[in-house]
């Protein structure tokens, strides 16, 4: 799945979080190697925010382990200095000006790149004297992101960062993110419920559905491990025995299977095709909630 020499920026084992009766995250085990841009994808309510908050140390796990940059998340300057977190609601002080937020960041952080944040805000045409309450949603998101980046974190956790941005700003923002990661020393985990937002930029994927991790790994590896099989309508027990069936679509004349390969597929009746990222994600997301693997969804089956 990944080279053993990779240093892990994030590692969780059996991470579970309950809020009263609702289980927001169940037994999540993920790894994100350093230097990746990881897309945390899942439908609304899948547990993306919970996972990010656990990584940031804003929430405590009910059970399981979290390791971030080699240590447990802590309310300690040495941890906080290395981790940037941007909440989905973009919490900022509405009555502060943009400049006062920059000043607050300078006062609250031992490592702070004030020149960078001023230059970034200037390039975004966000005036320092403006009150935050008067900024547009997109400007607020950009300001919050600039403040987070000015900490020069080693791990950046972004909860739906592009939701408030228009398509152009979205592309620009993701390009900047890729650039920052390319400069080295930065790992990013960013969530979205839309894969299309992140597909271009990310090289790592965490797929959450119904509070459980469905997939986690480098996108190239994941794509190579999966295959789409297209063949006639026939019994697929043998294939299901040899490989892990993720998702199946059966019509009267044709069967389409998404499988996780455990070796070469030898059934000559099926034509094997590479799988696209979107196909892969949709295949996993349309699984019914519950234990995996082996359950399959049948769509359009005629009785």
């Amino acid at each position, binding site marked *: 799945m990944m080279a053993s020499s990779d240093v892990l920026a994030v590692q969780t084992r059996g991470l579970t979080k309950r809020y009263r009766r609702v289980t927001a995250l169940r037994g999540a085990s993920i790894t994100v190697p350093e230097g990746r841009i990881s897309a945390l994808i899942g439908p609304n309510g899948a547990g993306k925010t919970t996972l990010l*908050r656990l990584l*940031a140390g*804003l*929430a*405590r796990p009910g059970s399981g382990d979290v390791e971030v940059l080699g240590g447990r998340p802590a*309310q*300690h*300057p040495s941890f*906080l*200095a290395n*981790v*940037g*977190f941007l*909440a989905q*609601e973009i*919490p*900022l*002080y*509405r009555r*502060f000006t943009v400049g*006062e937020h920059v*000043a*607050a*960041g300078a*006062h*609250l*952080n*031992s*490592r702070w790149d004030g020149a960078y944040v001023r230059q970034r805000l200037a390039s975004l045409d966000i005036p320092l004297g403006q009150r935050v309450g008067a900024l547009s949603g997109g400007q607020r998101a950009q300001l*919050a992101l600039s403040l*987070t980046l000015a*900490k020069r974190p080693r791990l950046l956790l972004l909860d739906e960062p592009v939701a408030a941005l228009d398509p152009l700003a979205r592309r620009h923002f993701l390009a900047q993110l890729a650039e920052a990661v390319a400069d080295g020393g930065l790992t990013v985990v960013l969530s979205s419920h839309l894969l299309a937002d992140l597909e271009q930029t990310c090289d790592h994927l965490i797929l959450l559905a119904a509070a459980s991790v469905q997939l986690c790994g480098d996108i190239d590896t994941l794509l190579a491990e999966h295959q789409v099989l297209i063949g006639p309508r026939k019994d697929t027990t043998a294939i299901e025995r040899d490989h892990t069936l993720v998702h199946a679509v059966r019509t009267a004349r044709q069967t389409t299977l998404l499988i996780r390969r455990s070796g070469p597929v030898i059934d000559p009746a099926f034509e094997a095709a590479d799988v696209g990222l979107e196909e892969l994600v949709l295949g996993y997301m349309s699984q019914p909630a519950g234990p995996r693997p082996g359950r399959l969804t049948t769509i359009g089956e005629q009785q």
Partner: protein
Amino acid sequence: MTWLVWRQHRNQVYIAAAALAVFAALLLVTGLQIAGQYRSARAACAASHSCTNLASNLTLGSPLLSLLVTLTVVVPCLLGVFWGGPLVARELETGTNQFAWMQGVSRRRWLAVKVGWVLLAAAAWAGAVSALVTWWSSPANALNQQNFQPGQFDIQGIVPVGYALFAVALGIAAGALIRRTVPAMAVTVAVFTFLRLVIGQDLRSHYLAAVTIIGRFGQHARTPTGSYWLISRGLVGRDGQLLSAPPLESGLSVNGVPVSEMPAACRPLALQNPVKMLSCLTEHGYRGFFTSYQPAGRYWAFQGIETGIYLLIAAALIAVTAIVVLRRDA
């Protein structure tokens, strides 16, 4: 952190500073007038032969002003509601704690600096108001021997500082627990008022055992002197038991004992012939009058004890706040 606290709360500081300045100016001007009025009245009384009871003839200042000064009893509660209540609750409500807690400052330090400054400010404001009121009231204290009385005790000396620290700690803790500003403010008012009433009415008189003077009928009884605090008065029964009656708002009473509480046969004598009334009471088995009070010399001991109680409660509330803020999820 201090920069952030100042930026977040400077408007509250400006408003409170302006209010305090107006109040101080008002009290300084009128306080000097009252002091002058008292001084000349005393001089006139000393020169005159007919002046025996200055207090019954002299009214210091205007009733409206006295009312305003009495109303400073709500200052600690206001500080608790407007400074304490929103301190943590507003951050949790608007999510800005998530911004603050992901900067390079530990949650512990964030809380300590915020709470530290607001408590310091509350103590300073309550102390300033109390100092002004105490100074302003000093002629009235001397004239009416009133500063140990409930109502006056609560707005003078050091207890207002204790009340203010308690109120602010209560507001902070309520906000941390409820996580919403307006309900936290409401809870602050309710709990503060309840506790102040309970402690003021039921607990304070028991800080130290009251001194009781018993005077047998016909003997000249010692009377407490100075700014003592009267706890109860009444009759001494056959076996030496103290029979006190609730203080009467109106109606005739003898040494605080309502005439209606006396044996029916003695009642008519209360007005007509006090000496006969006493012998009537003796015939009915009563042995004398008693007076229970807290001596004037205990004023500062009581101030200290009451302040200490509120400081302890405030410390407990801050501890609860710390546990909630540091342990709970953001």
